[in-house]
């Protein structure tokens, strides 16, 4: 397979199919211009987040002549622009999956059960910062951070409490964890074993997308190569043992929150996805078999049509590249399944109730974009983790879209809109421009290590901030229609009690476990880390089951692999 220059060729092909619309030119001259003159139009131009200029009107001439047949198609058929399933939401609604976690495992266990009782259909766990970086609650750096941004997990004991009374054979769980994802996966497997759930029905997702950590979220423990090796081990282990476990959720969400445009989110996320495809192939896994285990995670921001176009373009690019460049034949292996979360960045600290409206618009874009699952942010999240009341409004927002609005009735209802289809091709083309550039730089890992991707995002973020500062871009309540002396809202507070409870539990775990066994396992783990041909997953499983702590297990890697300093971005 000669794939060198594939993206460049693709780009040229797309560009060769552009055409003008003479009738629109005539209309601009004869109808629009006199009208603008008469009404005193100030010549204002319109752009979306990707700085793509938006025309006044779109026509069939904005699309290539054979577009409907070649690029649009029908749902459940290649290239899946209109959705990955033949019946989409008519058959099954998207999964309503609310990202939750705060305080102690007891606190979060109660919140999970509250959400299940109110109709949530899948779990999604948020961890606190120490957990995300692989530190235990008794590390001095974790002081003041326990349970603040999510639930704290220091050992398997905490996971046992987190899932107490929740049947893992009946619900799927998504865990937003990256650097220590293999360790948390091992803990989840250990809980499933205790609940006697057969391994082939353990279902869920672990984020494990380390590339976007170096790009955007900045939660790593080791150098990229070490984390990539651990992901490879997880891919191999899960392919053989956990057939329903999605071991990487390739995430654009954080790239967008870090300040990228929609096009950059699309391009960098898919470039990461192709990197993981290459990684699996290198590990000797058949691409047809492992591609379906990779899922995606997108941001749905406030520019409504741009978001919908982005999601439609994402499905089409993924299927096209897998088929044309990677020679994947089984259509089931071409499907891009993705989760969507509404944008945190668009929420304002000012007049927070307005955030309900923003989230509604963004959630609708996710549904019209064909998402498989959805998290809706709560109106108080610019301030803190959501209160119970706020999170219920967010869940109800999804339920109203699902069961009142009529949106799910027809599949891809915006398909065929000249504007949305044109925008879909624009997003696609600009993504291929980035793929081409990244390939020429030596691939995604190189582009990240050079800081190129991070700098692109920081530059976009800065330009947007300048537009907000000047008032060119409006955030209602924040830079326009402000109110003096707003009344404060009630927000969730995490008390220091959570930290103390976690410290007590960890102390007890350390006092009651078999220390000699722990030492022996950790030393074997270090040896295994030194041998790149050894799969680390069985070692992680053995370690968590013996109640080695998250930090102890992470430290084995810190010793063997070392740390990582990011390139200078500013």
């Amino acid at each position, binding site marked *: 397979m000669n794939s060198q220059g594939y993206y460049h060729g693709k780009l040229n092909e797309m560009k060769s199919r552009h055409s003008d619309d003479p009738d629109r030119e005539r209309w601009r001259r004869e109808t629009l211009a006199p009208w603008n003159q008469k009404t005193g139009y100030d010549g204002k131009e319109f752009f979306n987040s990707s700085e793509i200029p938006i025309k006044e009107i779109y026509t069939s001439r904005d699309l290539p002549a054979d577009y409907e047949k070649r690029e649009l198609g029908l749902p459940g058929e290649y290239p899946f622009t209109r959705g990955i399933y033949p019946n989409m939401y008519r058959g099954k609604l998207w999964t309503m999956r609310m990202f939750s976690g705060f305080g102690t495992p007891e606190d979060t266990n109660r919140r999970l059960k509250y959400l299940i009782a109110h109709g949530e259909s899948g779990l999604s766990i948020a961890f606190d910062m120490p957990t995300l970086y692989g530190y235990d609650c008794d590390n001095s750096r974790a002081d003041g*951070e326990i349970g603040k941004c999510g639930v704290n997990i220091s050992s398997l004991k905490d996971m046992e409490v987190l899932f107490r009374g929740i049947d893992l054979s009946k619900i799927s769980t998504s865990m937003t964890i990256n650097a220590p994802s293999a360790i948390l996966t091992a803990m989840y497997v250990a809980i499933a074993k205790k609940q006697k759930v057969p391994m082939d029905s353990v279902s869920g997702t672990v984020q494990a997308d380390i590339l976007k950590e170096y790009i955007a979220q900045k939660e790593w423990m080791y150098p990229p190569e070490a984390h990539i090796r651990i992901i490879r081990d997880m891919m191999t282990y899960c392919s053989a043992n956990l057939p329903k476990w999605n071991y990487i959720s390739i995430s654009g969400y954080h790239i967008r929150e870090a300040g990228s445009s929609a096009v950059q989110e699309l391009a960098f996320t898919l470039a990461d996805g192709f990197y993981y495809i290459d990684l699996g192939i290198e590990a000797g896994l058949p691409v047809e078999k492992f591609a379906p285990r990779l899922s995606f995670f997108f941001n749905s921001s406030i520019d409504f049509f741009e978001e919908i176009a982005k999601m439609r373009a994402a499905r089409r690019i993924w299927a096209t590249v897998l088929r044309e460049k990677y020679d994947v034949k089984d259509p089931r292996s071409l499907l891009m399944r993705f989760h969507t979360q509404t944008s945190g960045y668009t929420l304002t600290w000012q007049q927070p109730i307005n955030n309900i409206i923003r989230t509604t618009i963004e959630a609708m874009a996710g549904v019209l974009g064909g998402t498989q699952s959805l998290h809706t942010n709560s109106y108080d999240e610019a301030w803190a983790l959501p209160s119970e009341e706020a999170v219920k409004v967010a869940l109800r927002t999804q339920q109203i879209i699902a069961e009142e609005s009529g949106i799910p009735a027809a599949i891809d209802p915006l398909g065929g809109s000249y504007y949305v289809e044109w925008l879909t091709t624009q997003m696609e083309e600009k993504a291929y421009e980035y793929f081409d550039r990244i390939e020429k730089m030596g691939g995604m890992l190189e582009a990240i290590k050079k800081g190129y991707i991070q700098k692109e995002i920081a530059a976009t973020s800065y330009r947007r*901030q300048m537009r907000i500062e000047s008032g060119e871009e409006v955030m209602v309540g924040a*830079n326009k229609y402000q109110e003096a002396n707003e009344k404060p809202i009630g*927000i969730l507070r995490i008390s220091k009690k959570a930290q103390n409870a976690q410290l007590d539990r960890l102390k007890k775990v350390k006092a009651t476990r078999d220390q000699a066994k722990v030492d022996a396992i950790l030393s074997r783990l270090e040896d295994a880390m030194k041998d790149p041909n050894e799969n680390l997953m069985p070692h992680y499983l053995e370690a968590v089951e013996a109640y080695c702590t998250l930090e102890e297990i992470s430290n084995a890697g810190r010793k063997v692999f070392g740390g990582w300093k*990011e390139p200078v971005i500013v």
Partner: protein
Amino acid sequence: MQGGRYLADGKSQSLFRDKPIKVLLAKPGIDGHDRGMFVLARAFRDAGMDVLYAGLLPTPEDVVNTAVNEDVDVIALSLLNGAHLTVFKKVVDLMKERGIDDISVVGGGTIPDHDRPKLERMGITGNYGPGTPLKVIIDHITERAAEARLRKNRI
């Protein structure tokens, strides 16, 4: 806060004529939310300041050491992880311990209203939340830098 008068009588211009305001941007907790830091770094630079960024996950000790070694005027702390009361305090406590009084400390991030007076009492001012105009932040840094510079120049 009495910094405003330095600006008002035009002293700040002459204070920074030979050496521009030097700011250290730092996220001293376990927190990777750096979007705002990058925006501030560029905006401060565009405003003529000399800007340092402490990088990812510096300890409070790292922050104070860098600030002293680089002789900055202002440390600008940011956290979006809810740990500001504990972690910002560690920075100012260390400074107090070491008798450093010629560096001002300002804060920002997701800081709820009810925490702001507590931070002010520690000498950490600003404590701006999302949506604050850059100009407000730059003016505040300039005021606090003037205070620090006057203390640096007192001998």
